[in-house]
């Protein structure tokens, strides 16, 4: 039964991804561009959801890994003629290595302290990149390679999403998910059950950082010009965190729903500069207040309520106290 559903889910995901590859044929250029942004945000959101939703690591250091990925991609492509897919893997790898290097210090921190620590990490990296001369300081780098077509970017993003889906599913639909959640729920109790909490957290952190790095690389490939304020900016961190919270933290498809909403909102609101981004703030507050499990959580609740078998004549049947 469970196996059959899992199979159905896998089929559905394959169908969706395959369907996405056809998007450029049907939608115009605009659809493809929105699609690209959506895919990048979904990958970032899923990575962050793995950390925060499954492993309890509420990180505010997202931008660090996006920035690292971006600089690696531009640096590598400018230095050598390397295929883009390999460069993207490189972006992810370097981000993952950085994650590995900082993890001993970061994982000493629990809860809020971890959150604040990752925030400091992101800021320190940004400040470093602004001052460092090898990376062009605040001026950043330009990509010398020819710029890719929108469709090509879109296909790379689909590839990235497919990879992310496989990796994250491998984490959240398998035995590993139980270990992840045990660390999230009570790290001390988990270690007393023999769980190598450090390794579990490290695995999640490295996987998430890899995906963030690769996504950052792809974004840099699209932009063609990168600098620390844009690539290491808090905006990434906040966007990713908002989209997961809006979609539904800890729900497998929360980031997907969240990314759709955040992108849609951003697109609509950018047309009304008078309203500025204040509306984003209002929406965030309202969603956090009234949909604690995000829009997806709200939707699932609604669906459950709609489909729940309700007694036709409850008054006669029920003696249960209210």
């Amino acid at each position: 039964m469970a196996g059959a559903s899992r199979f159905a889910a896998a089929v559905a995901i394959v169908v969706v991804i395959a369907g996405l590859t056809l998007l450029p044929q049907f939608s115009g250029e605009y659809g493809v561009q929105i699609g690209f942004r959506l895919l990048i945000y979904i990958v970032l959101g899923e990575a962050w959801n793995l950390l925060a939703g499954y492993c309890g690591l509420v990180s505010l250091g997202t931008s660090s890994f996006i920035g690292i990925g971006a600089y690696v991609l531009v640096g590598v492509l400018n230095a050598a003629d390397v295929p883009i897919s390999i460069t993207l893997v490189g972006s992810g790898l370097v981000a993952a290595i950085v994650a590995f290097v900082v993890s001993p210090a970061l994982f000493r921190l629990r809860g809020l302290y971890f959150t604040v620590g990752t925030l400091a990490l992101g800021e320190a990296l940004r400040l470093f990149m602004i001052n460092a001369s090898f990376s062009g300081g605040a001026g950043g780098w330009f990509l010398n390679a020819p710029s890719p077509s929108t469709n090509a970017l879109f296909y790379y993003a689909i590839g990235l999403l497919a990879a992310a889906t496989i990796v994250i599913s491998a984490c959240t639909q398998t035995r590993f998910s139980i270990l992840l959640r045990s660390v999230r729920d009570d790290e001390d109790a988990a270690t007393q059950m023999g769980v190598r909490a450090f390794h579990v957290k490290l695995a999640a952190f490295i996987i998430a950082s890899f995906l963030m790095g690769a996504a950052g690389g792809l974004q840099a490939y699209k932009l063609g010009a990168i600098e620390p304020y844009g690539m290491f900016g808090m905006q990434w961190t906040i966007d990713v965190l908002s989209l997961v919270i809006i979609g539904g933290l800890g729900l497998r498809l929360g980031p997907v729903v969240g990314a759709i909403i955040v992108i849609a909102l951003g697109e609509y609101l950018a047309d009304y500069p008078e309203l500025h981004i204040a509306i984003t703030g209002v929406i965030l507050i309202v969603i956090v207040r009234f949909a604690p499990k995000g829009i997806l959580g709200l939707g699932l609740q609604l669906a459950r309520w709609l489909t729940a078998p309700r007694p036709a004549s409850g008054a006669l049947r029920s003696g249960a106290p209210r």
Partner: protein
Amino acid sequence: MNKKINNGLPRRLAKAALFGAVASFALVAGWTSSANAADEIVIGASLPLSGPLAGFGSFQQWGYKRAIDAVNKAGGIAIDGKKWPVRLIIRDDKTDPNASASNIETLISRDNVTALLGSCTPSLVNAGALVAERHKKPMVTGCDPLEAFKSVRKWTYVWDLFFDEPDLAGADFKMIAEYGIETNKKVAILHDNGPDGQIVGGQIWPAMAKAGGMEVVENASFPIDNTQFTSIIAEAKSKNAEIVLVDSITPQAVSIRKQMASAGFSPKILVIEKGAEPVQFAEALGKLSDGILVGGYWDPSFPYPGAAQLAADFEKETGQTSSQHIADSNSAAEILLDAIAAAGSTDPEKINAAIAKTDKTYVAGLIKFDENHTSKLPMAIDQWQSGKAIVVWPKDRATGKLLFPMPN
């Protein structure tokens, strides 16, 4: 209960995935179909209307709108013998290059813009310009110093009218030489490490100082969100620099001036490029702004057609003091509109070719693009005197006398 969750979850995931996919396709389809009304020329721009650079964005928005309104008042642009109205779509990039790029993408792919106008500062302009370049849409921009613009790539569809960093950097030294100003020839340079700051403060100023027989006693750089300058100011003071050259954004410029005063340091000549230019700088500093020099590429007093009127209109409409940014933005929009009219077509290639042929004096000055797609605006030097920016150099454009040395 949990049994249901466990077994139902993948199925529900599948359902939700399908739902999500359908919803996103629907959304995309909805956007894509929001095409423009026919017989209309659409021009797009992404501007920093919020975030740290929101101040620039509001001036540019006014400049762009004014040009488009003027054309529409005249009935629009004639294409194939028929007058087409022009519609300007402005999107907010929140001072984020990523948003600037995606805004331009949306303007091109959803709104089918005919051509584009630029944002402000190299990182925002470049991010959008690269998208325009990739999609072969002509873009005219100001507000991007020419060296920083040229360093990105060899442009085909993007055109920039602004000052050139060597001009800006050299103006101060030219003025010192021309007016025969006496100092101890010790120069301290404080600059931010943004692209233009690095070029002006890191490269051109030191070179020109050396060429002018001066000694650079300090050359310090800082990131644009730094708030503390005590060490570098103390250093400049201890080296007894009489000429201090600063290149920074406005908030930092104000802090630097205050911190110089509170460190008891007052050089004879203080130039603050970029940051000292808007009137808010003088308002924030009050008396302390007196005597500060800043390079400018425009003033309502300049002998260009409509210059005085432009500033007067701005001040009447907004109730705020004008800025030179209204001139380059207004001119950029006019150049683009003229080129569309000259091309008599909305074909990007034809418009681009027409932009290349621009040779006319606009409100910002004579515009003629070179092979690097840049058109230089000549420099002047303004000095803040009692809260007003007085043009003090070159002599033929001066509206007042140079105050020297800088008052204490």
